[in-house]
């Protein structure tokens, strides 16, 4: 590619790509929203699930005879 081709390519690119408008930038910082999205993916289980798990542990602790029966059905 010689200098003439480079100039021609540059001119074609400038014609085909629209000029970047400085006012087109977002009005606010988007990075906190990205961080919130990432945090939402690793959100902790809801309180209802914690309560169910705690209830199961308490049940097994109070009635240990139920553990082999549970294992039989698992």
């Amino acid at each position, binding site marked *: 590619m010689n200098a003439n081709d480079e100039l021609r390519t540059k001119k074609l690119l400038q014609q085909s790509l629209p000029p970047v408008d400085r006012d087109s930038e977002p009005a606010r910082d988007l990075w906190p929203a990205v961080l919130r999205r990432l945090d939402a993916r690793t959100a902790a*289980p809801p309180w209802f*699930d914690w309560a*169910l*798990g705690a*209830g*199961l542990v308490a*049940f*097994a602790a109070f*009635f240990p*005879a*139920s553990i*082999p*029966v*549970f*294992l*039989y*059905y*698992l």
Partner: protein
Amino acid sequence: MNSHPYLRAFLAGIFVPTLILPVFLTVFIVVRLWLQVPVPIERGLVFPMALVPALWGLWNMLWLASHPGTHLSIGAHGAVLPLLLMPAGTLTASCLGILALGSRGVTWFQGVYVPYALIAPCFLAALAGYYLVWKYIVGFLNRVLGIA
């Protein structure tokens, strides 16, 4: 990774009960072979080792097939499984002679006594346990294998 989704659903479903199998084997070796406790534990292994893993796999395949129509969450779908497993397991245990029905309760493995008043809480606890296991473990595996 869009091929054989039902095979992947089956594999994700059998994951948890398959992990429990070595625990059963260890208990069997310790209790029956080492301690020589006269409990017919080998008869009790038939249901959890032969039937339960396959049922979990088939249940997950059923969830995959029915989910587009029912929109049922994986946890709720898994919590329904004890409704099928409890009668099947009880029938199997009764036929194999490891469950004896008494006047006030049930005796498992000729040694574990569960009063009738405790059966309903046991069943509710099983529903809760299945809900959590299916929601967090099977659901995670389904996402990893690209079917959820």
